């Protein structure tokens, strides 16, 4: 196919008239013009022959040199596609293949986006789509139109009220509107709110129920803060209504913690120096072929090894190559002054404390009760004042 100017790419018949026809033939042969089916015309003064269309140019030159006149006749073969024999045929061919490929790839499904669906429904839609052939890599012309997909997916996937399907170029978008069933309101048994810890009340907010304590009073653990039994004080016990108390009672509480910190700490710090190496894994062995082992370069280092792979659109192809990166690190020692250390200790203790409390707890103040230094360490005992919600639910007990 890639032979330069084959015969099937076009031949032309011609008639040659002149005095020295034999020398014309010999000249043609010398100039690499391939003549075939040469014959004398019946009258004998002309010559009929067939040449390749691509040779016409050099033939004209020969004709001029040997002083003969040439007239061309019928053409044969696929001379219409004579660009096949051209010099940049490969380039043109590549460009054409590219265009065809582009058109072909643009007719495939590349992505499916699902919007507004919970993970369960998204999974179901994806499964359904795979079943009908709507998945990346499938040609679009085999798929039904969007309206039909939309109708079918809405009917066949339960749990969604409406699914809109839209095609944007090579990707399909599913817009999902889910059914939301109204949640049943939880039934709560009548209850009180009682104190979970000892403290001084700082703030009371009651949504349901009646407050049993006032501001700035000291409560102990288990005291009723908000009662679920409401009604007039004077009325009979039985006539009182029992409800679930809801509210928030913020109180000042106290904690005491001890914390010990050394004056000197040492840690590892990365210097920022790093190097990489690539190793080929084969037959159960490793060959380093790029970079170098860091053992000779750094005294202390941390290494991380990852497997390389070629990421493709659908799958990742693993390579038998491991990349190891080495980060140099140095051991740094730091010593602190005593007052610096106390600040850090306070802060640290506060963080530890808050971690064990509810998220709305606040530390109001921290006081150092005791300080002790020995063995290069500071041992602190710290008192914290915290404001937090101390109300917890408790069932209403009769006769309290």
């Amino acid at each position, binding site marked *: 196919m890639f032979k330069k100017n084959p015969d099937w790419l076009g031949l032309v018949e011609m008639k040659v008239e002149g005095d020295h026809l034999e020398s014309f*033939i010999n000249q043609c042969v010398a100039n*690499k013009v391939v003549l075939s089916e040469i014959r004398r015309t019946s009258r004998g003064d002309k*010559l009929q022959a067939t040449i390749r269309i691509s040779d016409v140019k050099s033939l004209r030159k020969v004709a001029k040199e040997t002083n003969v006149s040439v007239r061309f006749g019928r053409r044969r073969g696929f001379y219409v596609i004579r660009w096949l024999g051209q010099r940049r045929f490969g380039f043109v061919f590549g460009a054409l293949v590219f265009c065809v490929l582009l058109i072909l790839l643009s007719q495939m499904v590349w992505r499916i986006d699902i919007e507004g669906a919970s993970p369960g429904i998204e999974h179901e839609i994806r499964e359904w789509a795979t079943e009908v052939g709507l998945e990346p890599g499938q040609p679009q012309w085999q798929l039904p139109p969007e309206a039909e997909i939309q109708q079918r997916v809405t009917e066949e996937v339960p749990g969604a009220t409406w699914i809109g399907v839209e095609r944007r170029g090579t990707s399909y978008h599913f817009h999902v509107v889910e059914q939301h069933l109204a949640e049943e309101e939880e039934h709560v048994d009548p209850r009180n709110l009682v104190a979970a810890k000892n403290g001084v009340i700082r703030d009371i907010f009651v949504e349901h129920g009646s407050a049993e304590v006032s501001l700035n009073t000291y409560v102990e653990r288990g005291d009723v803060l908000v009662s679920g039994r409401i009604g007039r004080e004077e009325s009979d016990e039985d006539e009182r209504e029992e409800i679930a108390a809801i509210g928030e009672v913020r109180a000042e509480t106290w904690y005491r913690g001890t914390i010990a910190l050394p004056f000197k700490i040492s840690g590892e710090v990365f210097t920022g120096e790093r190097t990489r190496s690539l190793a080929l894994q084969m037959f159960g062995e490793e060959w380093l072929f790029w970079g170098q082992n860091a053992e000779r370069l750094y005294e202390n280092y941390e290494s991380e090894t990852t497997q390389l792979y070629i990421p493709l659109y659908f799958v990742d192809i693993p390579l038998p190559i491991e990349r190891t990166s080495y980060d140099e690190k140095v051991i740094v020692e730091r010593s602190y002054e005593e007052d610096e250390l106390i600040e850090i200790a306070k802060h640290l203790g506060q963080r530890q404390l808050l971690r064990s409390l509810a998220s709305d707890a606040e530390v109001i103040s921290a006081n150092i009760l005791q300080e002790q230094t020995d063995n290069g360490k500071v041992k602190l005992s710290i008192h914290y004042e915290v404001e937090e919600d101390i109300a917890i639910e408790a069932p209403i007990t009769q006769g309290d």
Partner: protein
Amino acid sequence: MKRLSRRVNKWLTRGMEVPADVTMGVPRVTMIGHLHVYIENHRGILSFSHQRVHLRLAEGELEVTGENLIIKAILPEELILEGTIQQVTHKGGE
């Protein structure tokens, strides 16, 4: 010098049994019945008509006579004649 090389060629042809058309540039003429004549190692056309084709060779000439002769194809060293061949004559040379 030319004579020497010719003698060497002749000796090669006789002694080593190499075909003469390879070493000496003499023509090889193949006939298929009276339909085709293949001529290798020609040196050009001298004259050409329906009845007669006259070719130049390295040494001498070759004349083909017949009826309705056409040159089916012509290449620098090769030539195919088609038609009703009657006679192939080798002239000149040694």
